[in-house]
């Protein structure tokens, strides 16, 4: 076993364990913390793939900004333990074995038919200069469109989360009347 495979397996096990923990935990704050663990492990995988800049952005934007937003909302709304709802028994009886069977089939097909050529770690480094070159020349229009999207999202979240008592603001006003 090469060092790369060992590192891949270590990060992968952490990621999958965090994802499963997200499902198992009943308190939202525990789910949020396990999602942060998943994102950190994924940034390790990006480093193994030679995408250093993506790995750094993953930690800064995803594990930093977005998850802080989630944790902030959880704390703000004082979210408690999730209530259990009873699911259908048929879904449990047929769904879980069917899901396991389907995922095993897909994994087998992917592992069998994708050949043996390996992803060379660090074969294609993603330096910020090359990425910026691509982003500001070839993908300039999508870049500008996403900036408009961000602007609309900012305005939308301000309108949505504003107090209903503000005149003309907030969709919650209608429900309260």
């Amino acid at each position, binding site marked *: 076993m090469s060092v*790369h495979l060992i590192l*891949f397996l270590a990060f*992968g096990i952490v*990621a999958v364990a965090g*994802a*499963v923990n*997200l*499902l198992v935990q009943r308190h*939202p704050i525990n789910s949020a913390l396990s*999602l942060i663990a*998943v*994102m950190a492990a*994924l940034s390790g*995988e*990006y480093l193994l*793939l*030679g*995408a250093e800049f*993506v790995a750094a*952005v*993953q930690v800064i934007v*995803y594990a930093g900004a*977005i998850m802080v937003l*989630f944790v902030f*909302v959880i704390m*703000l*709304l004082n*979210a408690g333990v*999730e209530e259990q709802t009873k699911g259908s028994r048929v879904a449990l009886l047929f769904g879980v074995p069917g*899901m396991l069977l389907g*995922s095993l089939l897909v*994994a087998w097909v*992917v*592992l069998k038919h*994708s*050949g043996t*050529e390996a*992803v*060379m*770690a660090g*074969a*294609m480094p*993603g330096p910020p200069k090359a*990425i910026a070159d*691509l*982003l500001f020349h*070839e*993908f300039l229009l*999508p870049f500008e469109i*996403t900036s408009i999207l*961000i602007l609309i*999202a*900012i305005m*939308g*979240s*301000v309108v*949505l*989360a504003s107090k209903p008592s503000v005149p003309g603001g*907030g969709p919650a006003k209608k*429900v309260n009347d």
Partner: protein
Amino acid sequence: MVPLSYYLVLSGILFACGVTGFLIKRNIITIFMSIELMLNGVNLSFVAFAAHWHVLAGQVFVFFVMVVAAAEAAVGLAIIIAVYRTRETLNIDQVNLLKL
């Protein structure tokens, strides 16, 4: 050296965990986190394909996915705050105004 298929299987596992969380969770914030998990799984396959085919565009697309995820999280959490203000609950079973 790690084969490409290993990365794809890991990405598929993470996406499947996200779908499962989306379906079985009842807290609206946790459902949002499951969506983020799905996007992360997709990002992993983007980067793996970019490294495999030696095309840097895959990494650029990861940034677009991150931007969309950030916008979606901001708007979604604002909607959650608005819903909580009117319905006083985070349980998605009790937010059934549009149900027949």
